[in-house]
């Protein structure tokens, strides 16, 4: 399963990269979303999967799943949420100010700086 999950994370990365290389800002942001999903899955996989009960002691199980990656992922999820939110708003403002979401038109030229 872990091997499979590694591959899935890889696929998510690939899809994310593909999206980020496109021209549309929205697709790029969606790409970053996918990227963070891939990251989190990969991180979870690295802790080992399904080796025990959920890490809540009330379960009284013999073994528990590694709680550390879960805590890390939780932190990472929240942080990437913050980033995504800011990114979205910047995209929105950029569209307001610059009138496009095409990255080619957002390249910036020497003349105007």
């Amino acid at each position, binding site marked *: 399963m872990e091997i499979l999950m590694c591959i899935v994370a890889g696929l998510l990365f690939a899809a994310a990269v593909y999206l980020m290389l496109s021209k549309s800002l929205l697709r790029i942001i969606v790409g970053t979303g996918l990227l963070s999903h891939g990251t989190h899955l990969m*991180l979870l996989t*690295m802790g080992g999967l399904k080796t025990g009960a959920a890490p809540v002691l009330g379960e009284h199980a013999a073994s528990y799943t590694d709680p*550390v990656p879960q805590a*890390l992922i939780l932190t990472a999820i929240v942080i990437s949420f913050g*980033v995504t939110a*800011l990114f979205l708003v910047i995209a929105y403002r950029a569209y307001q100010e*610059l009138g496009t979401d095409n*990255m080619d038109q957002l390249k910036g030229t020497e003349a105007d700086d």
Partner: protein
Amino acid sequence: MINLPVLPILIPLIAAIVLLFVSKSVLAQRVVSVIASASTVVSALILMAKVKSDGIQTVDMGSWPAPFGITLVSDMLSILLVLTASIITLCVVLYSFRSIGNGRERFYYYPIVQFLLLGVNGSFTTGDIFNLFVFFEIMLMSSYVLIVIGSTKIQLRESIKYILVNVISSAIFVIAVGFLYSVTGSLNMAHISARISEISTEPIITVLAVLFLIVFGLKGAIFPLYFWLPGSYAAPPAPILALFGSLLTKVGIYAILRTYTLFFYHDQPFTHDLMSLLALLTIVAGVIGALAYRDVKQILIYNIIIAVGVLLFGIATMTEESIAGTLFYLIHDMIVKAALFLLGGIIIYIAGTSNLTKMGGLIRQYPALGWTFLLASFALAGIPPLSGFTGKLLIVRAGFSEGEYVGSIVVLLSSLAVLYSVVNLFMEAFWKTPETPLPDVKKQTGSLFIPAAVLVLLSVLYGVGTEAVYPYVMQAVDTLIHPEIYIDAVLKE
């Protein structure tokens, strides 16, 4: 006071919170900012004295023993960098009073600067690899906001690129931490180091080393990863640029330095040679960029990249001498870059443009500014006895003694390119007869100039007083060269 290492992180945090509460009054914000930044500096100084006398200071967060909780580790390296960063922030805050503008001041400029400082200081201090990521993120998040605050067109446009690149690097960072956790089963840096040294022959460690190099290289702007930097850094106003230029890339360099001396020193023929190659390419790329532009900001920005290359070369050489040189140069570069960006900001303010071809003749009205700028330029180029010299000297010497002849000569020549670019800038801005005569009215630059001048003075003192700094740096080098010291201090075995 066992919590001393926390203070340089805690004070900015508390300050930021207080600033949020008083966000309505610009005056109160200024006062609080200055007090907070100054007390950060003071706490860093106290901590440094403590580290000097008692060795590495650690605090186990929440009293949880070392590999399990998060441990803050103030070794000499970290506290030196923390001190430098705090001083720079203080100067930048002072500079901002007159330059950043009322709008930004009301919209949380000061608290975000404090958050940035908190992130930077935290990155320098933490002894936990994932915590490093968190501090990176707070630093980056602050920088995202700082780069875009004000929402001018260019800021919006460039911040998109900046954020995108950093999002990618953060993602890679997280998976890299995950891989490392999978292999070593720990997050505490000292613990990881101890465990890696047991399995140093595993090829996966080398792969991870390269992965971390990419992660930190994206932040530190090394050769094929720096492309985002020049455009993005050109967007925000001068004080923010000064913070970025002097702190952000250096955090990346710090992280490389830390990981490559603590974790990844086992396969040096591969990793360090690779790094050395990248370092030289970085220098070349930086030089090319610095020569290419006739724009104050761009020239200075490309100089960041050159410095990054030099530092990386120092790390790659990886002898006691070269690491010492790297540290000297790192601190120098932080101070002098901040100074130069602030001075550059004043120049742009006076001239109303950052385009060199459109300015000139400033020396007649602003002699002090001109000479200070020239002095800073020389310091940047590493002219003795100014601050850049010692570092470069040691790096080059170590390079020669390790047989890196080409690299050392490239580093030396980079000084020439640096000198050319900044002196050219100086001549264009200050000496050249302007196309349109300057207005007779002199703009008030006093309150802008003083913080910048303080930094330049600091850089001069740092250069001349190398001997005074030397024991501190060598203590830091000692820890870096002998990871056991670090491990023992953290794990208390």
